[in-house]
């Protein structure tokens, strides 16, 4: 039995109070300790990623499993059950990577309550690792809920002027969504012939046709609500722009780069993986909802004046691709959909992460995020401008950034599901349109005289390179993610 995944969860959780004490004592010490710890977690995550890549588990099987009985009495049983496969390992790695980058980016942008801030980041990281590695539905739900607590404080304590409203809205929306999801799990559990919360056990029951499809409808609906709030899917998205606008920029990176992935992961792992019959029957609705979200996010982004709000709506647009791709596979049988969805989650985390962090820098240096007020960045902040253009190119899916490949795969899978889904080709066009318009207004416009702004230093440029370089490398080495993702996609496609 391996302990790597437990270590991945426990290390950040145990580290959190120590980081708190260290940062209270000495701020520099705390930051360096956080940085060191997050790098260690990232190395472990890298090891997990490499393990999964070098020996991809066959569909329906999981690497690095750990299983202990946690609670059992009369007819109720619950296991502490962890494992990873080609779906979770990229997300584990990208979450750990973003945590390192967020800590680097927070040095300048977070200037009060640092001790609480850095310890909550580790609480968040540990919980996220738990979400992505849990193979037991209740364990999954527990980590899912723990994630909310640090997020509530991130938005509420370090946010902008309307932070209190945004924090309350965030926690009530997402808590309501996830409790409904839990109820769906419980209903499903009580209806099973031999009840279990373990995902592999349930999938084995599914393959031997022991779970009637009639049992799947309500849990599918319930989990849909939980995941749609997180993804977020229009019309469950209204907490997202508020939360993003109020959250400090490093937290926006975690919010968009990691938290939203929980929704996409949930759809693929649980909605499709545990309720495949019902999912297949209603795949059209999910496909249409994903498509609508893509268009809605893109058009809404076009209308935003606040740079950060624009990026927030970009996230809605991009996460729509995830749902669209995942369900396109169920209709067409083309594995490209789920593979593309997994790839899209990875690339979106880095691309949008860089843009959110950048919006923080721009606000810090220029004093505003309003696109019409940001003029002449090309001359006043040339290095920032270059990064902004590159980040925008990555987000709009311009080759050679691998986001292109991800969106391409999803759209191909969509077209093979239905010719009408070809309309999704228009989404990247709108995306490119609003990004280019934003660049025209900020980077290519005339600078106003009398504004003294500082450009970012080379060390910051290096930090941003960590976001963008992997995206370029991955278009050549896409097999790193797609090889382990293939058995997952084939398995999910083949579930009855």
């Amino acid at each position, binding site marked *: 039995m391996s302990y790597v995944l437990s270590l991945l969860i426990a290390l950040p959780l145990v580290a959190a109070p120590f980081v708190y004490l260290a940062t209270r004592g000495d701020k520099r010490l705390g930051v360096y300790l956080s940085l060191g710890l997050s790098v260690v977690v990232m190395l472990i995550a890298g090891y997990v990623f490499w393990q999964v890549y070098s020996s991809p588990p066959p569909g329906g099987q999981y690497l690095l499993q750990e299983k202990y009985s946690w609670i059992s009495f*009369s007819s109720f049983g619950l296991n502490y059950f962890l494992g990873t496969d080609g779906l979770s390992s990229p997300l584990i790695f990208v979450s750990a990577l973003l945590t390192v980058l967020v800590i680097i980016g927070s040095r300048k942008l977070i200037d009060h309550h640092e001790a609480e801030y850095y310890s909550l980041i580790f609480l968040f990281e540990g919980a996220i690792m738990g979400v992505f590695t849990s193979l037991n539905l209740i364990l999954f739900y527990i980590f899912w809920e723990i994630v909310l607590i640090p997020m509530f404080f991130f938005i509420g304590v370090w946010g902008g002027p309307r932070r209190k409203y945004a924090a309350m809205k965030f926690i009530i929306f997402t808590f309501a969504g996830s409790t409904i999801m839990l109820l769906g799990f*419980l209903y499903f559990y009580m209806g099973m012939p031999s009840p279990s919360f373990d995902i592999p056990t349930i999938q084995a029951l599914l393959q031997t046709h022991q779970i009637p499809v009639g049992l799947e409808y309500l849990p599918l609906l319930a989990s849909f609500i939980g995941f749609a709030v997180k993804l977020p899917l229009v019309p469950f998205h209204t907490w997202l722009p508020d939360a993003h606008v109020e959250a400090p920029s490093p937290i926006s990176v975690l919010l968009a780069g990691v938290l939203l992935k929980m929704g996409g992961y949930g759809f693929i792992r649980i909605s499709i993986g545990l309720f495949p019959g019902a999912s297949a029957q209603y795949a059209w609705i999910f496909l249409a909802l994903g498509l609508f979200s893509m268009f809605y996010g893109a058009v809404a982004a076009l209308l935003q004046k606040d740079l950060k709000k624009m990026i927030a709506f970009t996230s809605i647009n991009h996460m729509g691709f995830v749902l669209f791709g995942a369900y396109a596979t169920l209709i067409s049988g083309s594995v490209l959909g789920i593979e593309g969805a997994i790839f899209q989650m990875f690339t979106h985390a880095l691309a949008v992460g860089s843009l959110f962090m950048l919006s923080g820098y721009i606000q810090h240096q220029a004093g505003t995020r309003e696109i019409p007020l940001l003029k002449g960045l090309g001359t006043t902040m040339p290095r920032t401008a270059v990064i902004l253009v590159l980040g925008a190119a990555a987000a709009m899916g311009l080759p050679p950034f691998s986001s292109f490949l991800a969106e391409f795969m999803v759209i191909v899978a969509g077209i093979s599901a239905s010719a009408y889904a070809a309309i999704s080709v228009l989404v990247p066009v709108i995306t490119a349109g609003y990004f280019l318009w934003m660049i025209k207004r900020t980077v290519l416009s005339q600078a106003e005289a009398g504004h003294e702004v500082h450009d970012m230093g080379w060390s910051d440029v290096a930090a941003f390179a960590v976001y963008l370089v992997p995206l370029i490398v991955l278009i050549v080495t896409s097999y790193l993610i797609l090889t382990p993702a293939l058995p997952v996609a084939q398995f999910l496609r083949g579930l009855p």
Partner: protein
Amino acid sequence: MIDYLTITVVLLAGAGLFLPLLQVFRMGKRNLAGYILALVLATALALIGLFTFYPSSVPWAGSLIIPDQLGGVFALVTVGVTLAVAVASFDFQKSTSNPVYYGLLAFTALGMVLLAYSQDLLMLFVSWELMSLPTYVLAGFDKKLRSNEASVKYAIIGAMSSAVILYAISLAYGLTGSTQISAVVAGFASHPSALAGVATLLFVAGFGFKMSIVPFHMWIPDAYEGAPTTISTLLAAATKKAGFIAAIRVLLAITTLYAVTKSPLFTMANVFAVLALLTMTVGNISALTQKSMTRLLAYSSIAQAGYILIGFVAFSNAPGTSAATLGLTGSVFHVINHAVMKGAAFLAAALVLLQLKRADLGAYDGLGKRMPITAFTLAVAFLGLAGVPPLSGFWSKLILVLSVANGPFGWLALAAILNSAFSLGYYAWIIKRMYIDEGESTARVKEPLWFVLIFAIMVGLIVGIGLFPQQVINLVSNAVTGYTG
């Protein structure tokens, strides 16, 4: 074979009788009575603990009292809460340091212990009164108008509920010729009559006052707000639980054998389900609009009673099935968790009232800076009450919801889940006020050592049971199977 229970009863009765004498001999200074009572209660707790974990089947006092594990669990909870209240009173009741106060606490504890083990309706009623009468006095102990109003209101409603219970007992005795609970239940089953149904519903109403079930809840917010906050803790976390054990002993026993009415609509499961729904919803919606902490906690306590009732629904819907066992286990488990969480929350409110002299919600702005330990305790207790994992309240709510998730009462599970999400609206609101809002000052306020000690134990329990619930679940599950057979 040492009879732990006899020692416990003698100890508590002795404390109740002799502590007030300290006043007569002018030895009531410096909390002496409080220290003695705390020692007595701690001993009682240890004895009952031994007795519960290593049960003996020696019948005690004939058939009036049969010490089983289920009673042991409730006795542990109620005595534990009384101990916490007594310790908190060292500081809270310092100004009116009064041996009578502690003597009355001892009598309440004795009443609750006896009630937990009662197997006979008369014994149950006598214990019920032994538990209730001292609390009427304690609620008015502040000698302020508000406190006295609370006391009178509570006493009148309490007397009414006692009368209702007594009437139900008289009906039961008239119908079956016995006051032994098992005999009454068997008699109801062999000779069904409309009067038996009336008696059952009167029991629901009588116990419902103590359990704070809507629509028998009106006295709760006023009494909790007016009474000294330590006594509110006792009412919410201990005597209320005694109401639940009485209901389990009498009402659930009736439902195992006897369908109270012939109508398929008017079954006990449906009655409990409607009460549970009303109680949760009214409690949570009212809590949201409260301006004072004690009232908010009172309504939150009402809402939690609604969750506990869900287990009653599962039990009476299909006695003998695994869902029934699951439901009753969930109820008893939630009783334990709720006692700890609500006890912690009320004592935190008591400390805020003691140190800041304010009970309105404004006193909680920026409390995270002023009283960090109290604020943290309150935050953990609130998250637990809302059912956020991995705290103890999550597991009991999970088991409760699970017991009705797939079946005719699925709507109740949905209602419970939505209520939980809704309740986070006010719990998170207070947490926001404590940690995110700015207070009027940031100066540290003293947090007395005794309170810190209780808070540490209670937070330890909430988190500890949350992470490792197996031991407690085993105990509860054994107790429930021992009871249902």
